[in-house]
């Protein structure tokens, strides 16, 4: 048995347990007592003292001193935290918070725990290069886990709280008594109608523009300016699109009347840059040699595009379009002033009539929470919206993976 490695492993275990406890206490707002915190940190500190002394006895270099130093810092943090008041009232410095001491305890358990387990890789590999590497890898695993945690929290909560609300009635009825009963049938149809009309508007426009840019336009200043403009439009916040849609489509074109068409036009402008860019990327991925080969065989330019360029780039174009439409389906800001009502619009019947849509339905229900009993309906709407949007995205990813072309 190698005692150095055994001690390091012990440090790692203790620190990780402390970190997990700290995280758990933080998430559940557990009232961590001072003595628990003190014991946890003293354990880590003692392990580091042990490791440092052993290292100093066997190797006699500065690394042992370094570990003793770190152990002392941990011990000092543990000791000085004794002076934390039960509730730190930040209002004395005009900051609007009263932070309880257990928050500090669990937070420092989390961070010191992670950092101590990170450092324990160094003595394990006897302060060689490999120790730094494994420590770094460990930290990267941790960041990966913390990146995934919010996703799981979101998905878990929506499914757990929303699944009970998805009933036959919910899917097939209109809103009854401000959303306390009834369902979202018109809103589902409204969202679908919105996507459909948007697709009809944006597909020819976006793909046509992309074909022109990728195949016909000479690469010069004009194309660079257009491309920059497309990029900027893509980055423009969706609320600005909503603002434009309201001021132009609703107020000027449709005389103050919210309607399906105004919403779809706004969403079309929102998705246009996504479609143009992804279609152009897909077209540019087809190598130039193929075009040259086809042209050299006497095909015309249009024949070349139709028979050689479009078929392999079609999956890419489709993926981009579907992703764009998926985003449009979940957007609220562009439609809330151009197309939707919370209730009373009914199932979509005409392009010039307002509709109901799922994202706006969720927003309206959220605003009613606390006044009316709509919690379950709201969670169910969130779940349904998530299923629809993620379903669209998943199908786009499947298209991409299945028909991926390699040149």
């Amino acid at each position, binding site marked *: 048995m190698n005692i150095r490695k055994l001690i390091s492993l012990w440090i790692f275990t203790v620190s990780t347990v402390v970190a997990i406890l700290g995280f758990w206490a933080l998430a559940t707002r557990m009232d961590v007592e001072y003595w628990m915190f003190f014991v946890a940190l003293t354990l880590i500190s003692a392990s580091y003292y042990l490791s440092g002394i052993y290292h100093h006895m066997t190797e006699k270099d500065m690394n042992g001193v370094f570990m003793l130093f770190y152990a002392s810092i941990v011990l000092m943090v543990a000791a000085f935290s004794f002076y934390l008041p039960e509730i730190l009232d930040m209002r004395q410095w005009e900051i609007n918070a009263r932070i309880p001491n257990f928050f500090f305890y669990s937070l420092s358990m989390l961070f010191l725990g992670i950092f101590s387990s990170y450092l324990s890789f160094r003595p394990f590999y006897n302060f060689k290069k490999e120790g730094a590497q494994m420590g770094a890898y460990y930290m990267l695993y941790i960041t990966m886990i913390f990146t995934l945690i919010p996703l799981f929290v979101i998905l878990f909560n929506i499914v757990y709280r929303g699944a009970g609300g998805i009933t036959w009635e919910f899917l097939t009825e209109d809103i009854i008594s401000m959303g306390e009963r009834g369902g979202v049938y018109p809103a589902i149809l409204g969202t679908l109608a919105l996507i459909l009309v948007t697709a009809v508007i944006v597909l020819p426009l976006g793909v046509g523009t992309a074909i022109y840019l990728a195949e016909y336009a000479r690469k010069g200043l004009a194309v660079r300016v257009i491309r920059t403009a497309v990029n900027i439009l893509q980055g423009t916040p969706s609320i600005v699109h909503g603002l434009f849609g*309201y001021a132009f489509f609703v107020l000027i074109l449709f005389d103050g009347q919210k309607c399906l068409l105004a919403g779809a036009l706004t969403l079309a402008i929102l998705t246009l840059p996504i479609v143009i860019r992804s279609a152009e990327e897909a077209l540019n991925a087809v190598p130039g040699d193929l075009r040259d080969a086809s042209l050299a065989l006497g095909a015309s330019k249009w024949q070349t595009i139709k028979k050689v360029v479009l078929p392999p780039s079609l999956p890419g174009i489709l993926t981009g379009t579907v992703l764009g439409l998926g985003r449009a389906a979940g957007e609220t800001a562009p439609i809330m002033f151009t197309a939707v009502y919370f209730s009373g619009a009914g199932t979509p019947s005409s392009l010039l009539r307002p509709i109901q849509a799922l994202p706006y339905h969720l927003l309206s229900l959220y605003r009613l929470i606390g006044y009316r009993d709509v919690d379950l309906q709201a969670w169910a709407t969130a779940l349904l919206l998530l299923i629809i949007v*993620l379903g669209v995205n998943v199908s786009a990813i499947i298209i991409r993976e299945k028909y991926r072309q390699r040149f």
Partner: protein
Amino acid sequence: MISRRAKDKMVHYTFFGIATVSVLIIFFIFIFLFVEAYPAIQRFGSELLSRDWNVARNQFGLLPAIFGSVLVAVGALVVAVPLGLGAAIYLSEIAPNRIRVLLKPFIELLAGIPSIVYGFIGAILLGRFLYDTFGMRGTNSFLAGILVLGVMALPIIVSMSDDSLKAVPKDLKDASLALGATKWQTIRKVTIPAAISGISSAVIMGMGRAIGETMAVMLIIGSVMRIPVPFFDIFESGNTLTALIAVQMGEAHGIIINVLFTAGIMLFTIVAVMSIISDILQKRTTDKFEGKR
């Protein structure tokens, strides 16, 4: 029967026509925004940059909203950049292939969740959690906005940084390994510096998303037009440009609409500058590996 040549010409002009329409629409939007914002700029001028907002008294100072937008965006980056970069390095350099193909689409899904859902969950769960933990005056706060926007910016940062790390040629990594560097030294000293423009571009795009986000922020930040005192008091509620537009547009009429367009122009300008910088950075990455300086 039309000749093949004539048909070719016709198709060419059709596509030219479509492209022209698209381009005209895009530029029309840009121009329309400026035209609609102009009356407010003309009437209020530099008052629009003051800190006083009072609709009843016709005071339209946008400074609190600008401040809020910047604060939440910077805060979101503080949350998202360390996590996102770590995850991207893990995915592109360390993760075994089967874990990578599992996690990458998962992270992309995170980007697909509609912002209203983020806002809903953030307001109900996170807002409540922070309220209980920190004993604040209300459930709305900058802190909640920062945390939610940080999570929303994560997928962009992870996915774009991962792409640019993956784009570093294997030759370079091999050269470093062959000189006796460990994998981690290679990542730290060769792969990350080589991908740094792509990574910065990812960070900028993440910030762009944070600044442009509307629904989530609107539900959790509180829509109070006030700069907190002291300014780093993230436990206060506040407002952002996007939330301001979303909240005010409902009952807006007359000059307020023009003021909101001015706010739109500001957002638009910030995002435009960021997207241009990001493009330049990405072009620099490609140039670097093609041997140009």
